């Protein structure tokens, strides 16, 4: 029952697919701190790690020796078992916990070439010589021993549950890279939760597992072994070989010969039978690959969640600013900006006859300046402009402030938003510092543009002599008032009734506002002002949208697509290889 003829064919189609999957995994990026993002990142790392450490090397060299990883809880006796199997103290064992810091790989001298290079577990540097010392953590200590049969290698992993978290992570990595697990537990620990979660995982992956029950008091041997066997059957590991080693019988750090004989015998038998070895390799490899579609599916879901959260954040920031823009637009149209101070200034102009004088003579402006210099106050025309300016500016500033406050509150309630806010610092909840000068500049530019419009209009239409004779600035004032007063709530008449201007001024303004040209100019100018203010608020909103990592949606979607595609291709290859 040799499958070696089939393996290269399977490897031929699988390898490039898995290589593509590995490349796609490098692009998995989850920048937002959503609940569960950490788990997805860990899964991506684990998947990539398993591909590098085990699946790709195994597929490339299907005939390489079996890697048997001896794993289990702290104090279970893994190192002692390894030493006993090899008949030499190659792995430090002791009383203090945890003991094993650096994993020890014992191999047959003939197999040295397979393991000294970075074929399996390429991330761990190799260390030779000095058997029995704890070894530097993070490296793989290689020991060549004649007691190890060719075709097999034994790896003593660190524990899976001590306080040293680096041990736990390394143990998980090594178990993911194993062709065969030899799980060591004791009579005291065989019902611990942590080992069982790993065994459940192994069962789920159909990995090849053998269980060694160590340190069993002789009187309890029967009962405990039966209980453990029942538990294994419940988890779907009923076909895993179970070996029992009694407590005591440790001399010079090595177990007695007859205690480990069953384990040794089984391992030697496995090493000698090429078909059995191939079956083990195939089973574990297949099991690992079969789990990929589901694991990759979880990654894709995580990426989709990131994209959705990014969009939600963008929408949450856009909403308050859209409302602010609407409010600003409405305020521009309903004439309310003309109340209060602006109206007082306008009334001064009209009530005292300033405007009349202004309109009658081109020198009116000069006269205004002289009068203003004498009186020590700015000309009412200027005061009106200033009042309008400051009104618009105050409005935009307050709306931007309010929108920023609401956007910050909305982001705080969104998943992933709180971290972005922390990164941005405290100033985000207010309008940005350069909004005030920008608003002032914008309004002044608009007023300049308005005067330009009036000039063009006057130059183009000789029939509107009135516009010409008002003087550009006077006409500009009129149009500015018209911008804020024409449609919506106020007509010219209402406007003046509310302020109680003189009869003369009322007639004048009605005449002016009734003019078609003025209305048209006002509409154009209003549209211009609105678009300028909208872009100011747009700039404010940019502060928020810039914080969300860009391209979460498309990039995440493409990567998820690739991942799913590659995983599906892998599954197809697997099925065809059967």
């Amino acid at each position, binding site marked *: 029952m040799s499958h070696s003829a089939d393996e290269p064919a399977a490897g031929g189609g699988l390898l490039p697919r898995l290589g593509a999957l590995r490349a796609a995994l490098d692009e998995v990026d989850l920048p937002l701190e959503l609940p569960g993002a950490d788990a997805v990142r860990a899964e991506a790392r684990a998947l990539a790690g398993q591909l590098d450490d085990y699946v790709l090397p195994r597929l490339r060299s299907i005939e390489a020796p079996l890697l048997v990883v001896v794993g289990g*809880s702290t104090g279970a006796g893994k190192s002692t078992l390894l030493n006993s199997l090899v008949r030499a103290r190659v792995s430090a064992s002791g009383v203090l916990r945890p003991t094993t810091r650096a994993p020890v790989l014992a191999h047959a001298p003939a197999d040295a070439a397979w393991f000294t290079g970075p074929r399996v577990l390429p991330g761990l540097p190799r260390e030779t010589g000095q058997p029995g010392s704890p070894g530097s953590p993070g490296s793989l200590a290689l020991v060549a021993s004649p007691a190890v049969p060719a075709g097999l290698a034994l790896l003593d992993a660190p524990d899976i549950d001590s*306080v040293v978290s680096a041990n736990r992570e390394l143990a998980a990595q090594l178990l993911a890279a194993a062709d065969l697990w030899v799980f060591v537990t004791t009579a005291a*620990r065989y*019902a611990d939760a*942590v080992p069982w979660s790993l065994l459940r995982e192994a069962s789920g992956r159909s990995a090849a597992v053998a269980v060694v029950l160590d340190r069993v008091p002789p009187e309890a041997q029967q009962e405990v072994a039966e209980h453990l066997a029942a538990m294994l059957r419940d988890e779907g590991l009923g076909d895993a070989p179970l070996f029992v080693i009694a407590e005591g019988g440790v001399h010079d750090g090595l177990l007695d010969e007859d205690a480990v004989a069953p384990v040794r015998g089984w391992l030697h038998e496995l090493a000698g039978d090429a078909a059995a070895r191939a079956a083990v390799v195939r089973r574990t490899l297949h099991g690992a690959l079969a789990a990929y579609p589901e694991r990759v599916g979880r990654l894709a879901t995580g990426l989709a969640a990131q994209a959705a959260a990014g969009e939600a954040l963008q929408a949450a920031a856009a909403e308050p600013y859209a409302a602010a823009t609407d*409010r600003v637009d409405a305020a521009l149209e309903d004439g309310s900006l003309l109340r209060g101070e602006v109206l007082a200034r306008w009334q001064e102009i009209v009530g005292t006859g300033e405007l009349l004088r202004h309109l009658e003579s081109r020198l009116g402006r000069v006269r205004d300046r002289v009068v203003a210099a004498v009186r020590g106050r700015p000309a009412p025309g200027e005061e009106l402009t200033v009042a309008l300016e400051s009104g618009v500016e*105050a409005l935009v500033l307050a709306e931007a402030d309010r929108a920023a406050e609401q956007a910050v509150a909305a982001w705080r309630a969104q998943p992933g938003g709180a971290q972005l806010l922390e990164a941005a610092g405290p100033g985000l909840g207010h309008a940005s510092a350069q909004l005030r000068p920008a608003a002032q500049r914008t309004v002044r530019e608009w007023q300049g543009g308005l005067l330009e419009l009036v000039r063009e209009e006057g130059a183009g239409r000789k029939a509107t002599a009135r516009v010409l004779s008002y003087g550009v600035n006077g006409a500009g004032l009129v149009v500015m008032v018209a911008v804020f007063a024409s449609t919506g709530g106020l007509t010219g008449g209402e406007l003046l009734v509310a302020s109680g201007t003189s009869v003369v001024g009322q007639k004048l303004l009605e005449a002016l506002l009734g003019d078609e040209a003025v209305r048209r100019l006002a509409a154009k100018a209003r549209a211009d002002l609105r678009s300028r203010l909208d872009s100011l608020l747009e700039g404010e909103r940019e502060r928020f949208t810039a914080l969300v990592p860009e391209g979460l949606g498309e990039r995440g979607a493409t990567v998820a697509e690739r991942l799913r595609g590659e995983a599906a291709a892998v599954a197809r290859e697997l099925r065809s290889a059967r």
Partner: protein
Amino acid sequence: MSGLLATRRRTRELPERLSALDAVVTAAEGRVRPELVDAARGVLEQAGQRMRLSPGSTVVALAGGTGSGKSSLFNALSGSALSTVGVRRPTTSDTHACVWPPADAGPLLDWLGVARRHVVPEAEADPALHGLVLLDLPDYDSTEARHRREAERLVGMVDILVWVVDPQKYADAALHERYLSRLRAHRAVTLLVLNQADLLTPDAVEACVADLHRLLKADGLGAAPVLALSARTGAGLPELRGVLSAAVAKRAAATERLSADVDAVVDRLAGELAEPADGQALGTVGRKERARLREALALAAGVPVIEDAVRRASLARTVAATGWPFTRWIGRLRRDPLRRLHLEAPAGRSSLPPPSPVARAGVYGAVRGVVDAASHGLPEPWARAVASAAQSSEADLDDALDSAVTSADLPDTRRVRLWERGVRLLQLALAAVALAGVAWLCALFVVAWAQLPDPPTPDVGPLALPTVLLLGGALLGLAVAGLSRVVGRAAARRAARRVGAELRRRVDDVADAHVLEPVKDELQRYVAAREALRRAG
């Protein structure tokens, strides 16, 4: 070697600290993270209940992983075979209790939720352990999640924690990360026991204990005592009994444990109620922000509009009363500005224009300024509470401003003043004089036209008296009108100022009631919470 219940000297007793913690909870509710408030409440409730139920007895729990030998130790200490010791794992699934006389521990064990109880007979009881209640907990690390939940529940309630570890499991992450490192505030009530010491050589035992000390120091429990013993052989048990009896004799274990609970929760709360990071004074609302708020609210309430209307109405009335009689009736054609605003209407809203967006923007900016100043240095959730206190709904503010304005007493502008009456009489007299002059001139004209002889007409200077009468009356009338207009303008301005001051006073009241008072309340609450936390620490 016993450091158990080695209490540190505290400046305040437990009851005082508990009432201070209660004050903190009341003040900080809704303003710090809810999980902290819940934790503090839990501590208060537990303290209240524990102190009611035999406070002099000492509840000791044996906690540990499966297989560490808790049940064997329990049996050895209690001299019973109450706990099942077995090889199948996990073994203990329900908590067992052993009660030494004279503890009447029924209600206490009911509160702890322990159903299996064994009372040591008076005759066998070791008098040194009188008042001890010993619990054998289920494990915390087996596949049975139910055991872990039960163990964790009781670890949170008992007075003294005895962690039973063995040479295999003493470095398990479950023990150190899930329990010991989170109980560093409870080091005075923590004791570790290294069981199964008979499986190791004496040197190995020493090395293990030293290693365990090292791990405990990393957990923050460096002062906790470690005893090595073997429940099976009995080695080391007398020392353990000694430690326990010393603790029981003090009758202070419950107080110690609850104090440690308060310590832990106060530490967590202190993180939320910290000093401002940059050392500046806590938020205060300065004069500038207050002034800005009052101005903005006055603008939004339309105070300038009303002032202006009062001024113009007053002037119009003066002109109507004292103007030149022949032209002053024109002014009556115009509507009274004040009437137009409908300010006299008590119920219903006035016809004041609602605040323009600019005025609203001003109010928003001013309120935000107040909030920013007040919440300077406050932790974030509290700053948010200040903000929501200050930013009551805009409709409420609108209504309050409107009613403040309409309820103000405006001067009756239609009442004619005394001096105006006088001037009116004068104007009438002057008009009469002018009319007399006109009539005389007309009479002269009629006489001249009827070719009657000229009656004697007195001369004043170059002009005839009737002309003088006419011109004098008219010109003087105009002059009086002009003068009284000037005076009237000043009087109108004064009246407007008075009204303005009155209205602004009312608006200030609104500002205080709706914005400044709530903010001050929040700040005071914060200070009260900090003070109470200091008393609880």
